[in-house]
């Protein structure tokens, strides 16, 4: 193909074919692509199923933060109405989003899975005071959902799976621990099921990445789409593989190399 004198026109053919192909871009602010399951967005402070806050005011997040954007002060729990199940609770919790780089080190450092990140990263405040999120804004509401501030653009799915599940990677990739729940329950949702990722059975409902894969594969050339996507063509290709080779040499498509 490349050596034929008409290969000059391959570019014309390709660009013309593209006219009828689906678009790979989306009209961004109007519609957004589905977020990756562990997208790093705006933080949330989680609560246990009984409504207690998970934060114990240990300041590990503030210590590990490379951008120095977290300010925490702990206080002893009042004995008559404790805020967290532990000895202490986060009395002051502030994140400065002018500094935060969404590296998720705080999420990794947190011993109680109190701080995690939602998938919402599109928020634009118009003054510096709004950039500093206080505890009142970060703590999830009584339904376990992140609070929605007027300058934040929440879309569907961005407030899902924001709890300790965020950290639920199998430790060191050890398959024995796969699917074993090792995170605490959350207000409103309870204990989330584990994600079955490494054994090849993709749980698309849990990861939310199916739409994304579909959107991209639609644009791929037929030869680029991996086999086993269960289209008619793939089944034919699989059948073709099952045909013994001597038969293939006789009737199969001739290799023109």
């Amino acid at each position: 193909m490349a050596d034929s004198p008409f290969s000059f026109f391959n570019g014309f053919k390709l660009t013309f074919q593209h006219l009828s192909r689906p678009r790979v871009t989306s009209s961004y602010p109007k519609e957004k692509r589905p977020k990756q399951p562990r997208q790093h967005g705006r933080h949330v402070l989680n609560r246990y199923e009984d409504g207690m806050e998970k934060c114990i005011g240990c300041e590990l997040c503030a210590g590990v933060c490379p951008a120095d954007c977290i300010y925490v002060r702990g206080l002893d729990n009042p004995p008559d109405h404790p805020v967290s199940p532990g000895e202490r609770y986060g009395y002051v919790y502030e994140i400065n989003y002018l500094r935060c780089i969404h590296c998720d080190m705080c999420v990794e450092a947190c011993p109680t899975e109190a701080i995690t990140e939602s998938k919402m990263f599109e928020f634009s405040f118009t003054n510096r005071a709004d950039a500093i999120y206080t505890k009142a804004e970060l703590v999830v509401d009584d339904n376990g959902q992140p609070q929605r501030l007027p300058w934040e653009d929440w879309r569907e799915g961005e407030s899902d799976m924001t709890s300790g599940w965020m950290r639920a990677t199998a430790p060191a990739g050890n398959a024995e621990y796969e699917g074993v729940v090792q995170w605490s329950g959350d207000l409103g949702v309870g204990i989330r099921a584990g994600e079955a990722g490494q054994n090849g059975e993709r749980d698309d409902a849990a990861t939310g990445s199916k739409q994304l894969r579909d959107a991209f594969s639609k644009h791929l050339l037929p030869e680029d789409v991996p086999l086993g996507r269960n289209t008619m063509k793939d089944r034919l290709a699989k059948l073709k593989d099952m045909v013994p080779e001597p038969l293939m040499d006789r009737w199969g498509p001739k290799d023109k190399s």
Partner: protein
Amino acid sequence: MHLVLFAAGDPLYDNGVGWAVLAIVAIKVLVAFGALMGAVTLMIWFERKLISDMQSRIGPQRWGPFGLLQTLADGIKLFFKEDLIPNQADRFVFKLAPYLALIPALLTFAIVPVGGTVTVASHTFLLQVADPPIGILLLLAMSGISVYGVMLAGWSSGSKYPLLSSVRASAQMISYEAALGMTIVTIVLATGSLSTHDIVTAQAHGVWHWNVLRLGLVPFAVFLIAITAELNRPPFDVVEAESELVGGFHTEYSSLRFALFFLAEFMNTITMSAIMVTLFFGGPAGWVPNIPHIRWVFPILWFLGKTVVFAFCYIWFRAALPRMRYDQLMSFGWKRLIPLSLGWMLVVAGFFVNKSWGFAMAALVLVASLALTRSFEIGATREQGPESVLPVVGARPMSAEKLRAVTDGDVESGEEEN
């Protein structure tokens, strides 16, 4: 009776100029101007939309249905931008240059026959702003002037990239103009007239009379390539090569002056599509159904349809072809296009005299092309061989063997070869 005027047969208005004639001319000019401006708006939208489609993007979509008003929004934005003139600029020439680019683009469209004849209140006139006897020469003159627009813009900016760009522009446009002129000569030979109206009427009797088939495909191909280079459109847009020259000749321009260049470029694209249709595809010629009162509409539709096809082609070129290197561009123009158009013109001219002259010319051109090919071969050895005066652009500073000797650590043998 002398009020009935045939603008085609009476270009100098020997019968006197009445108010009706003036009104018709004024209306024609205004309509052509308005239509061209509207067409430019649509062309910019069309290009952006089509390019985005070919690149699997969405393209403009916010302003108006399908983003049709995007150009208008861009124009308004440019209108309110600050108009900067660089300190080092030659102020007068800097201000003049955009108009030198725009006005030829506008004027060229005047000679394009858009439709047949129309009779309004006993006045019959051509759907063409002007039909001067020099006709197609006006195209060459105007494209000659528009070189000045580009060249002076780059020179007067007082900045090095625009200057480089303008040097490229003038060299490129002048060298491709030769091939362009040669193909036009072929057409003029076939028609026997310079007037665009005559060129169109000569092709009006069916597809086989269209110059694209009548003269063989070669003049059309040469014309298409040369006019693309003349327009500085991809793949010949070395003048505006963003990767090499920032923005090219209009790097220093902003605001409305930049908009004028932009306008001129797209206006030229439309005009040249129209010229190509006029010269090779019979202009408004085409099948006309016999419906009374609106018969005159169909030639216009034919013309528009054919022009849109070429506008599409230009955009397709941009999507499909990578930009040519500058030296490749020049050698392609001088070594291939000009000899080809010249040879084809001689053959066509021979066949117009009689068959034996035609075959004699064909034989002559064949011999000449063989000689030319041989001379190019000799020239290539002089360019790359041991006798080369200058190193070839893009060549390695040392030969492959020498390089290998150095990189393989055998430095001494490498030096011995020197």
